[in-house]
């Protein structure tokens, strides 16, 4: 702690901070550009100038850059000093010299940091009377639009993209007043985190291209606190809606999870919500080919009638649906008839992961906490593909060595360039074992490209090297043993080692290997962490809720032991072979499907009930760190399209249950369902603590979903009705579907739909909601952790697989997760489809030669269950004997299966 004096008032601040951080934490308004809480200071823009005085006698003072000056005890400064104010006004004036003043047509307008700072400094008249310089823009791919003329040369983009996220294809070019930020060549930005440029850039150079075609100002968007549904990391988002469409997704600050950044799948993958072909009204498919559109009551009656006639009803839940939806389905069909909707091999991994979270002795760090580990072992995960935001956190952990070295030479952590200069490429050790190259290889100390069995064996060997009580690996070759020992030594030498494993390669042995390493470390009393990657947004939660695997459900139907099935937000064809699903659904007399997408499963439904997506419904998800978090409906779909009959899955199921029992549909609100779910499933007991309930108020007010400047409300529905309707009511949450209610930052609150504070319209406004910049939300970070290690460390697992041996006429299939195109719902979004790399089949060079196949040749891979033909990509890193295909091209092909390869004809072959 340090005491500083600002304009005559004394404040206690954190002496480790710089003056800019300190002032912002105190809530003082000091303009800045090049500084960013996650990127530190470089002192380039000179916008944060303040007057500093040596002592009480010094009346003259000198200008210093607040961001480059330590908040040392006894520092005296003035923000209000005339010279400082005049200089800051001058800086803005220079920054605006070449600016096109095109706010009216700029996508940044209304949430622009440059606008905010211009207003804050009082610059309003242009004195520069000479020619402006102009730039040409680049095509940067489907996500990011580029308008270089708006650039103020703060260098934040490259500092984020290159220094923070490790991208190599965005740079600063030129010099003097002709600096250009872009790609070295026009083309798609390669980083998985490019979307953050839209928020990191303080002006409109990098904007959200997916938003451009149906652009809306921030003040005209309606927001809700969202949880990203595109993977299991659980990033907090702020989706914005207008006219019943999601128009963009912004980062929502969470002090322990995503903090300032999202990945591009999460940010740009929302378009499935807006698909024109979405089911919006109940559909009944009887004998006729054309489905019959029904109203709610009729649909419920028909559904109830069909279920009533059924001998036994099976419920198939979903790891992409909320806990409340799954719970309500389980309640409807009874626990004995409930399936999680997850395929057995994946569920097996999930169950093992849950057990390890309890008994492997190491806690799961939050994403923020991941960054403070100083040695990382990743077994069988390409994090940038399977849990991208976690990968970004691991990158910070590895780079964390720099700050540690700098501290030893009294260089403060915020002095970003100095820290990098000193530490050069010093890194904490990161070891990755994966069948092929991963998105973190560039910062890894070692990348081992191995078959899944061999990765597991390596993990078991590491565990044994750490703790001799862990089982030894039989027949381990000397090289692997040496590698294992090296990794073990690095983990033991660390203050806080982190073990990361997961289910991406669907190998139980791999999961257990990570568990043994964790146990070994725990036994050696290392205060490390264990992170286990799950695939889907609520995989962790649904596994905790419990249920049988999907195969069981299909078998029961297939065998005729049940004759009706209710499927919740789950496309079964994404999980198991087509024939098998077809057979089971054909065997059922009644198939009821609830979903927000017109999936192949939906097409097989007798009754289809249009479920809410994250945009229209609320519910609870459990992330891979075991954090239960609530997401809230962004808008009420009937407001703009009165004919729609979309409801959250849980509400449909509640109503169906009532109809079945010929009761009136009760007025049940979400909180009651959540409570009921918690009561019925002890593992989920904590979820009642997740949120302030629907009755929560701030100063007696509900919370506004719309900014107070929201415009055109009375005209929004004028095409439907000129009289202004009452805004939709929301019985389930404390939020209003309007601008009425609290939207400020002064009163601490956890659930913030959008960040806005007077004078701060840009995402930088989050600094007003946190206890310190880059800290935690003053109202507490959302969510409740459900998984914690028990006091006792469980026994080591000793089921060690034999080594993988390539076979002459048979291959081992691995299905590799991929960020774009590898996930069910985001893959239905046009921008993601445009961004996804063409799917290829990969073989080691030697194997390709053996097959006499060349790059680009179409090959057909076939397993006992299914086949697919793809062009060949010769992969220099893949071990021999493996054939790799990307996730999302052939659901029925699963990792670990035996496979056969044949040449495929050029065209006509069925491809997904």
């Amino acid at each position, binding site marked *: 702690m340090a005491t500083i004096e600002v304009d005559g008032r004394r404040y206690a601040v954190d002496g480790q901070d710089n003056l800019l951080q300190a002032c912002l934490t105190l809530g003082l308004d000091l303009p800045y550009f090049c500084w960013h809480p996650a990127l530190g200071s*470089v*002192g*380039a*823009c*000179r*916008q944060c*100038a303040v007057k500093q005085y040596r002592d009480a006698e010094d009346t003259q003072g*000198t*200008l*210093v850059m607040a961001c*480059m000056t330590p908040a040392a005890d006894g520092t005296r400064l003035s923000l209000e000093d005339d010279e400082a104010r005049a*200089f800051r006004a*001058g*800086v803005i004036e*220079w*920054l605006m*010299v*070449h600016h096109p003043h095109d706010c009216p047509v700029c996508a940044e307008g209304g949430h622009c940091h440059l606008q905010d700072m211009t207003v804050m400094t009082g610059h309003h008249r242009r*004195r*520069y*009377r*000479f020619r402006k310089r102009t730039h040409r823009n680049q095509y940067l791919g489907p996500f990011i639009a580029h308008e270089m003329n708006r650039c*103020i*040369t703060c*260098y934040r983009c490259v500092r984020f993209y290159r220094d923070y996220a490790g991208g190599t294809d965005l740079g*600063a070019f*030129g*010099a*003097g*007043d*002709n*600096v250009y930020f872009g790609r070295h060549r026009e083309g798609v930005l390669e980083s998985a985190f490019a979307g953050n440029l839209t928020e990191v850039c303080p002006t409109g150079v990098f904007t959200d291209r997916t938003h451009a075609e149906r652009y809306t100002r921030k003040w005209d968007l309606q927001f809700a606190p969202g949880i990203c549904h595109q993977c299991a990391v659980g990033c907090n988002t702020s989706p914005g809606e207008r006219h019943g469409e999601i128009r963009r997704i912004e980062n929502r600050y969470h002090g322990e999870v995503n903090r300032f950044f999202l990945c591009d799948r999460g940010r740009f993958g929302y378009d499935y919500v807006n698909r024109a072909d979405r089911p919006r009204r109940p559909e009944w498919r009887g004998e006729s080919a054309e489905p019959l559109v029904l109203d709610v009551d009729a649909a419920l009656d028909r559904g109830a009638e069909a279920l009533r006639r059924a001998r036994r009803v099976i419920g198939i839940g979903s790891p992409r649906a909320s806990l409340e939806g799954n719970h309500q389905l389980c309640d409807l069909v009874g626990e004995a008839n409930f399936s999680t909707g997850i395929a057995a091999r994946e569920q097996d991994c999930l169950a093992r992961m849950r057990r390890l979270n309890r008994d492997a002795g190491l806690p799961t760090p939050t994403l923020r906490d991941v960054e403070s580990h100083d040695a990382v072992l990743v077994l069988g995960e390409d994090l940038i593909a399977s849990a991208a935001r976690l990968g970004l956190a691991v990158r910070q952990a590895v780079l964390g060595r720099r700050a540690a070295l700098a501290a030893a*030479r009294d*260089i403060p952590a915020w*002095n970003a*360039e*100095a820290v990098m*200069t*000193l*530490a*050069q490429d010093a890194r904490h050790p990161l070891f990755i074992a994966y069948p092929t190259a991963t998105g973190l290889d560039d910062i890894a100390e070692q990348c081992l490209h191995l078959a899944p069995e061999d990765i597991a064996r390596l993990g078991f060997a590491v565990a044994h090297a750490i703790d001799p009580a862990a089982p030894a690996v039989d027949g381990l070759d000397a090289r692997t043993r040496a590698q294992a020992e090296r990794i073990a030594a690095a983990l033991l030498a660390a203050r806080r080692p982190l073990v990361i494993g997961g289910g991406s390669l669907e190998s139980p042995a791999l999961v257990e290997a990570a568990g043994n390493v964790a146990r070994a470390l725990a036994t050696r009393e290392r205060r490390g962490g264990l992170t286990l990657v799950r695939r889907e947004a609520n995989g962790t939660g649904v596994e905790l809720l419990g249920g049988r695997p999907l195969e069981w459900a299909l078998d029961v139907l297939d065998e005729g032991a049940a004759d009706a099935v209710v499927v919740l937000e789950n496309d079964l064809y994404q999980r198991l072979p087509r024939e098998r699903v077809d057979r089971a659904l054909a065997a059922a007399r009644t198939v009821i499907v609830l979903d927000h997408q017109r999936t192949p499963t939906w097409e097989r439904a007798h009754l289809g009930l249009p479920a809410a997506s994250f945009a229209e419904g609320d519910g609870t998800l459990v992330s891979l760190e075991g954090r239960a978090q609530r997401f809230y409906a962004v808008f009420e779909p009937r407001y703009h399209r009165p004919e729609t009959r979309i409801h959250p899955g849980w509400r449909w199921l509640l109503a169906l249950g009532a109809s079945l029992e010929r009761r009136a549909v009760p007025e049940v609100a979400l909180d009651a369902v959540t409570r009921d779910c918690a009561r019925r499933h002890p593992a989920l007991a904590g979820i009642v603590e997740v949120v302030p309930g629907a009755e929560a108020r701030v100063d007696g007010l509900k919370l506004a979903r719309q900014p107070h400047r929201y415009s055109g409300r009375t005209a929004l529905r004028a095409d439907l009705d000129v009289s202004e309707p009452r805004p939709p009511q929301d019985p389930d949450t404390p939020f209003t579907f309007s601008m009425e209610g609290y939207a400020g930052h002064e009163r601490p609150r956890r659930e913030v739909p959008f960040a806005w504070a007077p004078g701060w319209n840009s995402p930088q406004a989050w600094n007003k909601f946190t206890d310190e910049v880059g800290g935690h939300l003053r109202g507490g970070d959302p969510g409740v952790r459900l998984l914690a290690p028990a006091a006792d460390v469980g026994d080591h697992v000793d089921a060690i697989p034999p080594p993988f041996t390539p076979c002459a006429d048979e291959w081992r299939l691995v299905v590799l997760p991929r960020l774009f195109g590898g996930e069910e719902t985001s893959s239905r979004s046009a921008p993601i489809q445009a961004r996804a790399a063409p799917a290829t089949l990969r073989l080691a060079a030697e194997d390709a030669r053996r097959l006499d196949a060349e790059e680009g040749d179409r090959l057909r891979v076939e397993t006992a269950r299914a086949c697919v033909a793809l062009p060949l990509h010769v992969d220099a890193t893949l071990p021999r004997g493996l054939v790799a295909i990307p996730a999302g091209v052939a659901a029925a092909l699963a990792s670990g299966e035996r496979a056969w390869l044949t040449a495929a004809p050029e065209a006509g072959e069925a491809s997904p």
Partner: protein
Amino acid sequence: MTAPRYRSRLHQAARERRLETHPLTGWLRDDGECLGLDDYLAKDGYGVVRQVLGRQDPDDVIETLKAANVRGRGGGGFSAGVKWSLTLKGADMPRGYLVCNADEMEPGTFKDRLLLEQVPHLLLEGMILGGYANDAFYGYIFLRGEYVAAARALSRAIEEARAAGWLGRDIAGSGFDFDIALHTGAGRYICGEETALINSLEGRRANPRAKPPFPGQSGAWGRPTVVNNVETLCNVPAVLRFGADWYQGLSGARSDDGGTKLYGVSGRVHRPGLWELPMGTPAGELLDRAGGLRDGRALKAWLPGGGSTGFLLPEHLDLALDFDTIGQAGSRLGTGILALVADDQSLVALVRNLEAFFARESCGWCTPCRDGLPWAAELLRALERGDGRPGDIERLEALAADQGPGKTFCAHAPGAAMPLASAIRCFREEFERGIAAPGKEAR
């Protein structure tokens, strides 16, 4: 008519120069050719290396430099001894680098070129000694790319020295290892700024680095790094050979700054060129040596040491050319190479030329310099055309004030502000003449 090939030359003949009085140019051949290793050795070159390495404590070397008060000849005038004493060294510190700043691009400066082209071994000897004092294991000569002849001379000298054992492992049996590589630049004035230079050496864009940490704490590749000017380093052997008192004696009563200085004069004088003279020699003496202005013109103003120093007037000609005296007169000694402005030359045009230079050479890192200097250059162009508007001069003054030390990221912009502010201060009416008469259409 034929345009002459340019050759760097000193105006003092060999008989006027002795090593005891001219520690820099005492070595030079009269024919302007490069002094090879044999000739250098014949004059006991590298003798100081033998005398010091392994025999003197590095800290004593630094003490001698401090006592001699060798002030940095790159323009800043910072004591070399003090700088060296601040370099981090010790058992827990990696050995670092000694970098010679041979990026000479300061407008109006042509002194280092002479030393580089004609006595490269003197520089190498100075660097070896500097390396020893600072516990550096490697030295770089950061040479501007256009100095082609210097590059040839230096490469050859490095090879010669390495072959003769003056570079490499265990130099002269001292147990001290040190080697030198030549790094040639690719343009850009800002590379002369020591931290930008280090970034450039590392193969990056030459944006300066924030200080602290200073290069001596964390420089090239994060290791302790000393950056010194060519002329500074060339002074080191003599200081260590003859001692601090001798060095102080060279400038005698003229200045507290020790030693001699390679002074020069450019402009419309009869004999532009270089002289090695005691530190503190008055400017008037230099003007005399240069033979006065040509074409019977009178002196209007002068820059004491490059484009980034402030204008002085004829009345300042009797000032001693040393760091403190010129500093007190409101300018800076800079590189000590005078540029003279004749009374028929336009100050507005000259300042326009200077500001256009500084604007063009801004690295583009910090706002005041990147966007402020081009604006100043535009205003000056307008004034030069007679298109100025009321308020333009005040705008220029404000722009100059906003480029002050501490307001910008490095000293480039403050250097640009100096001639601008001083020119307006001394010759305001010339600028006022550039304001368009009322009614005249301004562009």
